[in-house]
């Protein structure tokens, strides 16, 4: 009788990192999303480190130059180097997205938990407010808020705040429904019977199981923050001095960039924005699939 030798390695459970990469292979959307995002981060970080960011502001370089070796993305009507403007703009976009996304997710998770876990009148109030606000187009309310502000008060940070004011509803509803279903599972009843307190159950039992959902709704919040701040900037409600990507497109359009033949001015920021939003949307869809075993592709 022959015994087949099995090398010891095959017994070892692959590490979590390797498992994650194996999962990425099955979830190409998530993979592509991460790939683009890493590229964007590299572009921004290398750019911030190597480029003089003062070139991103008016009157710093020769205006209206088409893309060349010296100015790879050209320069605009106001004398901004568009490469520098893109680097600064992407950095600021990331700042708005992450700030507003983190804040929105935090509020959403907190409200969703309170609503679902304690139920009763509190739950009805939170759910009712979300339902009433739902038909009101968020963007329009943001237009009212941004339009009421003094133009000098509009900065990257106020943009993030305006965006987050109405962006917590979706995370709240998602987390609420997840906690509602999780509350009824056995491990929570067991924890309750064994005498754990409410806070302990929330933090030690429910929260860890919700992490994929929280991650997905964080990415969603970042996406919607970037999206809405971009729209606000495109209609001219952004911090006008800053080279936010939406501001650049707004400035190009109001100077009639295509009519005057300065095609590079709106085009490059638009490409950057497409990459940002597409990568976030793909990651969000991928995380949804990861979080929701029912749609997760088995292999």
């Amino acid at each position, binding site marked *: 009788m022959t015994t087949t030798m099995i090398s010891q390695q095959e017994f070892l459970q692959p590490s979590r990192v390797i498992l994650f990469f194996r999962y990425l292979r099955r979830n190409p*959307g998530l993979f592509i999303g991460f790939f683009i995002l890493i590229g964007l981060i590299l572009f921004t970080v290398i750019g911030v480190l190597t480029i003089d960011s003062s070139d991103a502001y008016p009157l710093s370089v020769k205006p209206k130059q088409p893309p060349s070796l010296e100015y790879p993305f050209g320069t605009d009507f106001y004398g901004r180097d568009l490469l520098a403007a893109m680097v600064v703009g992407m950095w600021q976009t990331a700042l708005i997205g992450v700030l507003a996304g983190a804040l929105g997710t935090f509020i959403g998770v907190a409200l969703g938990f309170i609503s679902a876990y304690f139920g009763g009148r509190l739950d009805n109030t939170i759910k009712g407010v979300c339902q009433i606000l739902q038909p009101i187009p968020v963007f329009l309310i943001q237009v*009212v808020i941004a339009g009421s502000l003094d133009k000098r008060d509009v900065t990257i940070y106020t943009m993030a705040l305006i965006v987050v004011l109405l962006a917590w509803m979706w995370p709240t509803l998602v987390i609420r429904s997840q906690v509602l279903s999780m509350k009824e599972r056995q491990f929570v009843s067991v924890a309750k019977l064994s005498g754990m307190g409410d806070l302990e159950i929330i933090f030690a039992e429910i929260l860890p199981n919700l992490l994929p959902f929280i991650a997905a709704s964080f990415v969603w919040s970042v996406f919607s923050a970037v999206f809405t701040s971009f729209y606000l900037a495109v209609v001219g409600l952004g911090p006008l001095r800053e080279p936010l990507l939406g501001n650049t497109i707004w400035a190009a359009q109001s100077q009639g960039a295509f009519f005057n033949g300065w095609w590079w001015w709106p085009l490059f920021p638009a490409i950057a924005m497409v990459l940002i939003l597409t990568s976030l949307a793909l990651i969000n869809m991928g995380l949804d699939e990861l979080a929701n075993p029912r749609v997760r592709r088995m292999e």
Partner: protein
Amino acid sequence: MSIRKIIERLLFLVVVIWTASTITFFIPRISSRNPIRERFGQLARTGGFSPDDLEIIIESYNQKFGLDKPLWEQYADYIGSIARLDLGVSLYQYPKTVSELIQEAIPWTLGLLVVTTILSFIIGNVLGAVAAWPRAPRWLRSIATPFILFMGVPPVLLAVFLLFFVAFRLKALPLGGAYSIGVVPNQSLKFYLDVLRHQLLPALALIFGTVGGWVLSMRGMGVTIQGEDYVLFAEHKGLSGFTIFRDYYLRNALLPQVTGFALALGNMVTSGIVIEQLFGLPGIGTVLYNAIKANDYLVIYGVVLFITIAIATLMVLVELLYPLIDPRIRE
């Protein structure tokens, strides 16, 4: 549907409109800006009257608009005027009312949005249904993939690319405007064709920017319907694939999508507003954009409120009419 349900939904509509008007009433009052002072200060700088007169004018206008009354009285007046569908006057184009401005602009916006919303709904849902239909040929099913891949791209960005490739590079379509420069609007066929040519790019951007959402949700819906017994039964009856697809599969999957239609209206209108401004079309979006540029607050708030009321009303209408088209939830 019971009378009680209808009354409940109508009450909900009133609450939504009341909330929206309360938000648009209080936000400007929290802010430090004073629209009347800004407007007359601007006029004073361009000449016309002395600074002493300015204070008197501002005071008399405050009185005229009721801004000297206590806040709660102003609020009551405001809610009362909304109930009468009176949205106030424009500060910049005084004495034009906001309703007049909206009336002039609304045909442009409706024309663009109604057509694109319906086309996007049809294209997206058919593509999504085909993508989930196992018997469809592979190439047909894969048409849907790029739409899902680029779902996150807003119509405004698509518009920039379309402008670059189609209008700027190929010079096939105009770069913007509602009709050619120098043309006087008239009722001739030539004028309508000219308008249509100018609407093509914004419409394409809006349709392709919103199809992805429908494709994704319809594909999900389609997957669940395939397993239903009635689809299996139809197959065993020997019905042709196309009949099953159209009458058993598409129809059942499409009905829940109608409720999503109401929700999608908000996004559609938002994108439509920004697109109009990008192409310089004289619709509601451009009214809003000009009001933002000129700090014409009353117009900003009036337009925002008008759109909110329109969307909320449509949503409730769809909800109330839904049982008529879906017999399954008729009581």
